[in-house]
């Protein structure tokens, strides 16, 4: 048995009339922010100082964006400012407890300071999150394994 045609037609007509042209709320928050886009380019260019400046600016406008916080953590980590790196990774996870990248990078940051148990906590979190396999789990697992061999 197929759904009655009148039911489909009525529902679709209501949607088409009422909802057209209002897609702006579906755009990712960071898509239009020039500082965010330039900040990501700076990260790709390994220009940590510019990345921190640009992403910090973007974070002021978009205070609840876990991706921005994660990139800031990454930029601070690579510039050797681990305290600030931890702060931004933690903020990313506060905003999105399932942020795979932040779990991976925070785990790696803990390895850098020799805190293996904390790194393993983030691996365990990724194991639960990544029921659909994700590369972040494998990356952190490999780093932890390498760290154990040292």
């Amino acid at each position, binding site marked *: *048995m197929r759904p009655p045609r009148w039911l489909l*037609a009525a529902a*679709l007509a209501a*949607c088409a009339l009422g909802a*057209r042209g209002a897609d702006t*709320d*579906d755009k990712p928050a960071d898509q239009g922010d020039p500082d965010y886009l330039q900040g990501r380019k700076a990260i790709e260019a390994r220009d940590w100082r510019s990345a921190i400046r640009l992403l910090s600016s973007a974070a002021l406008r978009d205070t609840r964006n876990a991706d921005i916080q994660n990139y800031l953590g990454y930029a601070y980590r690579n510039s050797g400012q681990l305290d600030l790196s931890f702060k931004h990774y933690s903020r990313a996870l506060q905003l999105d407890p399932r942020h795979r990248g932040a779990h991976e990078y925070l785990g790696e940051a803990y390895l850098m300071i020799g805190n293996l148990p904390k790194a393993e906590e983030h691996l365990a979190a990724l194991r639960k999150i990544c029921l659909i396999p994700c590369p972040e789990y494998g990356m952190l697992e490999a780093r932890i394994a390498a760290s154990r061999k040292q």
Partner: protein
Amino acid sequence: MKATQLGTYPNVAVYTAMVAIPARYYLERQDWKGASQLEPLGSGFPANEWQRAVADGITYFGIAMGFARSGDAASANSAVDKLKAQRETLLRLKQGYWAEQVEVQVLGAQAWVEQTKGDKGEALKFMRAAADLEDGSEKHVAMENRLYPMRELLADMLREQGDAASALKEYEASMKNAPNRLRAYYGCGKAATALGQTKKADACYRQLVRLARNSDSERPEIQEVAQLLASK
């Protein structure tokens, strides 16, 4: 409705409605054959890539559920793979919210594939993850309701696995977030009956009858429950 009637670049709500209505029609009736024959949005519609991925996610979830619950694990797996591809598209397009919604669908559909394959433990692991993830996320305005509450599907799975006590608990939890659902009342009544909780079963069945009081549907659940209550 024809694509030309929709105008240029309609809102995503148009597409979610277009695919959710037939998907719900089959899923709510547990018409698994019908669900397995759902068709993705045709190429003639002026949808953006991410809108199409959201819409196709709904359809492939329905197809996967249809095949899985018909006992065809291989075809269900193939639909789950297509569902995963929609999630990848949404991740690539930075549509984090919708990617997570499709992830919920992937986990839910994978759960029923495992159930069909007979791996009850894996099935529950995926189904619980789907329910927890969905309950932790907000419903988008483009979906007037969840496509099918994952916690209710978890309850259905527990009931199918013979764990009526856990099933009843999950039905009750699901009804707090998604109240007034015929299938939840039906499942709640069945689980309570299995546990010998006749008062609770009666309460659930009476709610089902109340919900369907103006219905002229021939759905077997409604007739079954009406007969059951009439015989008391």
